[in-house]
């Protein structure tokens, strides 16, 4: 039983990180219908910013977190403006390929600048784990869960109630109509990328606290997993990303504990396939049908 609860907690820990990253995928997909393959590499950028500011430059933790967020946002906005915006009216596969290109560019440039060797990340919080009977919950796990929940609530409130949030929903419903209603579509899309990347910056920080190895290709795996989480929950739907992320994290850690470490990826993909076959638009998604 202890193993089960420990795995559940581990799963929640990584699941909430996936969920945070998945939010970036889902928001961008919701608004421009683009699978932003470069999103995982934004995590990598955030991680390098964190380690450089914290270790090499000796900044304080809050300041280096802020730096990671800002750098991620700047990268996100630049990528959107330079690479994706000109392709908005082209076939969707063109922007998909461009996203793949951007992802490759970021990884390989990082490889050139930082080298292939992975860098460690120091332990920031030397705080005793919280204990419940046999259970140990590390401080980082608690922090991750609390921060993630807070950010998701904040985001959901922002999108549902604020003026900018309404504009985002309008653009995602119908780009052209939103334009006619006087919404500044370009700024709205940029804002979406900025929010997604800010969350990725925070996600990166939480990720390297859990897995303290920073390398140019480190973003691919959490990126892919988070993307699957977004699809699982229903891509384009914010609560769906959270649900998908948590499910994926828990499923992954349970498989590792009870079935096989090697097969955990296969199980993750298997869950994705089963869900898509029975709920083609994801767990929270609504299937739409083309009107004849």
């Amino acid at each position, binding site marked *: 039983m202890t193993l089960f609860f420990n795995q559940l907690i581990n799963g929640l820990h990584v699941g909430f990180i996936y969920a945070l990253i998945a939010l970036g995928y889902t928001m961008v997909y919701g608004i421009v*219908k683009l*699978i932003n393959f470069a999103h995982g590499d934004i995590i990598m950028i955030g991680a390098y910013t964190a380690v450089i500011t914290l270790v090499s430059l000796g900044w304080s933790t809050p300041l280096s977190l802020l730096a990671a967020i800002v750098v991620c946002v700047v990268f996100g906005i630049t990528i959107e403006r330079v*690479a994706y915006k*000109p*392709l908005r009216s*082209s*076939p969707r*596969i*063109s*922007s*998909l*390929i*461009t996203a*793949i*290109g*951007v992802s*490759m*560019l970021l*990884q*390989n*440039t990082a*490889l*050139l600048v930082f080298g292939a060797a992975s860098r460690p990340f120091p332990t920031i919080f030397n705080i005793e784990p919280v204990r419940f009977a046999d259970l140990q919950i590390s401080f980082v796990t608690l922090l991750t869960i609390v921060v993630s929940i807070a950010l998701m609530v904040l985001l959901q409130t922002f999108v549902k109630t604020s003026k900018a949030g309404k504009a985002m929903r309008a653009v995602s419903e119908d780009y052209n109509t939103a334009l006619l209603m006087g919404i500044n579509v370009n700024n709205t899309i940029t804002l979406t990328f900025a929010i997604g990347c800010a969350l990725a910056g925070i996600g990166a920080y939480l990720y390297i606290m859990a897995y303290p190895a920073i390398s140019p290709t480190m973003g691919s795996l959490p990126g*892919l997993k988070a993307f*699957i989480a977004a*699809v699982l929950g229903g*891509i384009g739907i914010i609560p769906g990303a959270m649900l998908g992320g948590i499910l994926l994290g828990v499923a992954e850690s349970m498989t590792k504990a009870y079935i*096989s470490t*090697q*097969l955990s*990826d*296969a199980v993750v*993909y*298997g869950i*994705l*396939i089963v869900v*898509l*076959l029975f709920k*083609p*638009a994801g767990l929270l998604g609504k299937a739409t049908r*083309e009107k*004849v």
Partner: protein
Amino acid sequence: MNKKTKAILLNLFAVIFLFLTVVILMSTGVLNNYLSNILITVLITIIMTTSLNVTTGLLGQLALGHAGFMAIGGYTSAILTKIVLADLGFSFGLSLPISLIAGGLVAALFGMLIGIPALRLEGDYLAIITLGFGEIIRVVIENMEITGGAAGLTRITRMSRAFSEDRLTSSIVQFAIVFWITVLIIASIFTLGRSRHGRAIISIRENAIAAEATGIPTTRYKLLAFTIAAFFAGIAGGLFAHQTSILDAKAFGFNKSIEYLVMVVLGGMGSITGSIIASFVLVSLPEMLRGLAEYRLVIYSLLLIIMMLFRPSGLLGTAEFSLLTTWEALERFFARIFKREAVTRMPFQPRYDVWEGKPVLETHNLGISFGGLKAAQNINIRLMNNEIVGLIGPNGAGKTTVFNLLTGVYIPTEGDVVLLGKPIQGKITHEIAQNGISRTFQNIRLFRSMSALDNIKVAFHSRMKYSPMSGILRNAQCLSEERGIDIRARELLRVFQMENDADTIAGSLPYGKQRKLEICRALASNPKVLLLDEPAAGMNPSETAELMNTIKLIRDQFSVAILLIEHDMKLVMGICERIYVLNYGQIIAHGKPEEIRSNPEVIAAYLGQEQTAQTEVNQHA
């Protein structure tokens, strides 16, 4: 010697010349081992990209797991030559072809097994699910014993060593094998693309709903395209295994699939020659940039982004370098040599059969409810042969719903539909189309990037018999049927005075002609019942007048009953013999135009008030 024969000889020469040049360069040592090995990689990549182009380009579905099929083919074929066939004492020369084909077949089998569930999804979701399957294939291979697990399969017989003691000779044999297999596969994809099966696949890309409504079994064709692509990828995998002698499942992951997809997109989706050029450039470019090893991938990815920004449709778009025309000429040339002159076989006689005096289509209490909402109920419609019947009603009355019920787009929840005396409810759209109901759509659904003639030919699909294999081989049956439908399709266009537009791309025709072409396509599947959904929408008065003549012409020339949804009262009153009026999903009136015009219930439905309504409808008429 005519022009075409010359052109094909030229192309055949080009391929042979290319082959001989490489062989000579290899034997003189200009192309050293390193370079000729890259050349083999280029050829294998070409097989991968041209086959991926079948799903992505022709079928228009994004697949992200193509490398998985390559892995299946590679491992199957390697295990066969290394373990099974070697134990049986087969020589490598014999076991290689067997293992390649086996690799292709096993990959095709997996393609089919994966395709059956996956192809229910579309677009991004299909992309994701194929990604998932591709990764599962990789993980499973990594965890199996026979595949060598995570360490991989090593010491697979190398083609470049196995054929002769002399390494050079063996390398040349390897090149010859890979080269001609590649040529064969490319030619097959070309000819398949031009057959009725290829047209069916492309029509799904253009407009899946219209394809289904014209009688194309879309699910089966999606599966066919997917399976064929997997088959060729499997063969490529087999060749790869025997080129490198080492298989490592990690090499066939998501990134590999993406790499192939990138090449297809850069070459131009739907362009086979584009894929060939892109494969060549993108495989050899990194090798050329090897001096700049560190910057190689940076430059590669920058090129990719820049290419997409400035030429998003890829190098060649959907255009084709003209290998195809030469292929056709080639077979005509050979037909002449072997005196195998194919006869023109008319695939069918236009049906002017008798169904006089009996209803061709009847519905009994037909209805459907969505949740609690009854969108249509108690619909009783009866169409006699050669009748023009109108179906009118205010917006949202359920007119298009009735069409969707008749064509199987919606499955009725109550009542039944009887076509030519046989019940058809529960049948799928394409089966209903083949049984004799065709339709046009409220918003035109043509296969926009196909020519007008090809649009018609898609509808002739179910009237031809030849198999995908004879399409690939372009044998006598295929040629005679194709020639037959070419004549029939042109005849049909001539009836509508559109013979000069035969080769025009459908999407670039003027609006009125697009409407006409859609009607023409609906007639091509030789229906007994033609459903026209607002054919006059968006037309000006003179175009509407022309449409009226067209509809009358159809009635006179084809033995078909026409059911017409229309808001243009002048048109409806002018040509319909009977009219059904629909409101709130129910038929509220039925009769001759003059009866309908003065029916108080109809007037109330349209205008709400009786007094003003009377004059209003009269003015319309």
